[in-house]
């Protein structure tokens, strides 16, 4: 187990460096001088362009730039951004926290609604509740998240005034973006849960357990739930990774100051240090969560031995 974890962490490091290298190469290929222009139609003073190229090391070959970047990255220094000239770590720090809070809130809503709905639908198959869950999940999956977000916003912020329109990072202003993010995932979780539960309920060991005369509660919790939740855990793990990477559209709609917001604006501005920072972070989160999910399998299903 220990060896397994170490090997996986080693792989993670390789993946991370690979990702930054690809990113660097891509940004280099993109046309346009990253410090060549101001916003709007105005050209930047060539003297300033030269000063900035020197300051950010853009006058050096790509290999040297990448080498410097990696050396600084190891020291925890992501450099200085091109527009405001602030430290990237300082710019992204608060955003990281905001995105993480939003992701946690969304995943909680996601799990509670999704698992409960799936459970009810599976246990009371073909009942009114089952049909309702099927219908609602179809709708939820069918709507794009920006439609859901905008409808929630104009209903609850503009018309009813229950939640702030402009997020200020408070708990209150987190509720709507969290719901927007959670709805589609919750629907998928519900369907997944329902499907796997129905399968497990038909399994021989469940029939055996019931035949042994175990109480229904025990059968459901110990045998059915535990076995049907494995695919759900995988799914949630992956989706949590995605959420932690920042939600581009939802953050923009609700003005949530997170990683998605940072990525969108930095791409518009050609602010390469921020882009590299956000994407490197996104890759790191994804890789770490994948590892955690794999480890969780071992906990949930003792038959799986990691080696």
């Amino acid at each position: 187990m220990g060896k397994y974890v170490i090997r996986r962490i080693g792989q993670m490091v390789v993946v991370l460096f690979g990702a930054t290298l690809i990113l660097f190469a891509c940004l280099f290929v993109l046309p346009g001088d990253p410090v060549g222009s101001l916003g709007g139609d105005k050209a930047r003073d060539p003297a300033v362009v030269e000063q900035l190229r020197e300051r950010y090391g853009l006058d050096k070959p790509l290999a040297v730039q990448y080498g410097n970047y990696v050396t600084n990255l190891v020291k925890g220094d992501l450099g200085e951004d091109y527009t405001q000239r602030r430290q990237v770590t300082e710019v992204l720090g608060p955003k990281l926290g905001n995105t993480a809070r939003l992701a946690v809130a969304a995943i909680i809503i996601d799990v509670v609604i999704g698992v409960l709905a799936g459970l009810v639908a599976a246990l009371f198959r073909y009942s009114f509740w089952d049909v309702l869950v099927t219908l609602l999940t179809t709708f939820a999956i069918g709507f794009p998240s920006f439609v859901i977000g905008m409808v929630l916003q104009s209903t609850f912020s503009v018309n009813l005034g229950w939640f702030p329109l402009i997020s200020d990072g408070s708990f209150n202003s987190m509720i709507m973006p969290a719901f927007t993010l959670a709805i589609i995932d919750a629907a998928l979780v519900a369907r997944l849960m329902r499907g796997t539960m129905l399968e497990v309920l038909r399994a021989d060991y469940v029939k055996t357990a019931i035949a042994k005369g175990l109480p229904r509660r025990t059968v459901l919790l110990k045998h059915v739930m535990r076995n049907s939740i494995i695919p759900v855990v995988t799914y949630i793990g992956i989706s949590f990774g995605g959420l932690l990477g920042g939600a581009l559209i939802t953050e923009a709609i609700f003005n949530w100051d997170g990683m998605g917001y940072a990525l969108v604006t930095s791409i518009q501005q050609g602010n390469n240090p921020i882009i590299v920072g956000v994407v490197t972070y996104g890759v790191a989160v994804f890789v770490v969560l994948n590892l955690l999910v794999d480890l969780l399998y071992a906990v949930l299903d003792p038959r799986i031995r990691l080696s």
Partner: protein
Amino acid sequence: MRGAKSAKWVVGAIVVAMAATACGGGSNDSGKGGGATFRLGITEPKSIDPINAQESEGTLVARQLFVGLYDVKDDGTLAPKLAESAKPNDAGDEWTFQIKKDTKFSNGEPVNAEAFIRGWTRVATKASASDVAYHMNGIAGYKELNGGSSDKFSGLSAEGDYTLKVKLSAPDFEFDKKTAHPAFSPMPKVAGAGDNKSFNDAPIGNGPFKMSGSWEHNKKITLVRNDDYGLTKAKLDKVELAILNPANGVTLEYKGFESGQFDWARMPVPQMPGAKKKYEPQGEWVKADVAGINYISPFNETSPMNSADARKAISYAIDRAEIAKGVFQGLQEPATALLPPNFKEVYKADVCSSCAKQDKAKAKEYAEKAGLKPGDTLDFGYNTGAGHEEWVQAVAKQVEDVLGLKVKLNGLPFKEALEKQQEKGAKGIWRQAWSADYPTADNFFAPLLSTNGINPDANGKALGDNRGRYSNPKFDELLVKARQTKDATERAKIYNEAEKLAIDEDQAVIPTWKRTQYRLVNTKKFTNVKIDFYEDPNLAEIGVK
């Protein structure tokens, strides 16, 4: 199960850590509609310190925190602020400014000639790498200071406490107007160097407002009235600037106005006609023709746009009125000059004959003279994602219909678009726009149309703003002459002559639409709210009902 157990712990620790960050949320104090608080949304500025304040959002804040020699009225004339008098010498290459006595920065430091020298030097010095430093490049000693060979601004000197002398490297009788730009603000000693981060985020100034706390990046900036302000004090107690993301900012401003959370808002273009219908009768709809221009820039050096006749053919073929009515729903007006109407002293309508109205016969006549044949290709470039698609297509269609040319539309993201325009062999026409930094005709003509404005690098890439590469020695001479002319009426005449030459005779560029701006304003609570010269609300003058 040892491994499984440790895995549990890892996961547990992460969940706890994340829950902890979840609890760290800020307090929620929104929703209180305080007495005289003016609320609006902006996007994250690059800088609010005059050291690098440049776009509308940044200069809005910088101009509340600092006051310099002059401000600009919305008709483009100067409003004296700290300047009691400004006298150029007869040659026009030395200016003497008398500064209003006994005003102070909000930390008590005096605002004297030294404070101005300190501020200007801080902007122009090499280490600051400031994007707005070039506004000072007419001052003697700029090259040395900006190039790093000196740390003194040799053109600036103080005589006594309140007299500022400015030596220029070439005559300029309109230098006083340039000083309205926030880069020319005075600075207290506490400002330190340009990269003083704590000052950058909470500048201490001498303006009508001061910071309440620091700039909360991507969240908000709060200003409160500066009760020690040395000039007419503001009436608002407080200004709250919510920072919105650029991807959705305009929509949020509009929604925020509708739900009563903002007192000033822009609108998404498709929503404008509806908003006008709703808010104009209530007096909450404000319009201004501001100091900018939308135009089409032909590449003057390369075929097919290398003759005035070819450029006139295109201009005559465009039906500006039709597009203004159709695509813009009457919210944009055709332009017939390059200068904006709010430059009262120099503006003349109908400078550009080919702009007056579509004339198919003349268009064809000029096309024939220029050798433009039906079926020829015309490249038409524009930057995508900024709402230009519709009118660009309309123009292309008109040019195709009238002249039979094949218009090749080439939409590119902003940075790539810029790169393409700068290329040596760029050909065809390109969409362009310009906004003034200060109210001088020179601020349009020198960067956009003078030979110096091309500024090619070693590979012939045009680094300046004259990307159409128009070059006419006669025009250049007129600009120099205008700068050397003391009398404002005489000077205006020279500028008119220059504009006539470049825009009418040579058709160096093709003006299309004026820059017209609209805002929604809460007139139920506030009085005298206007769009100022910089397209911002006139915060220092707003009254409270």
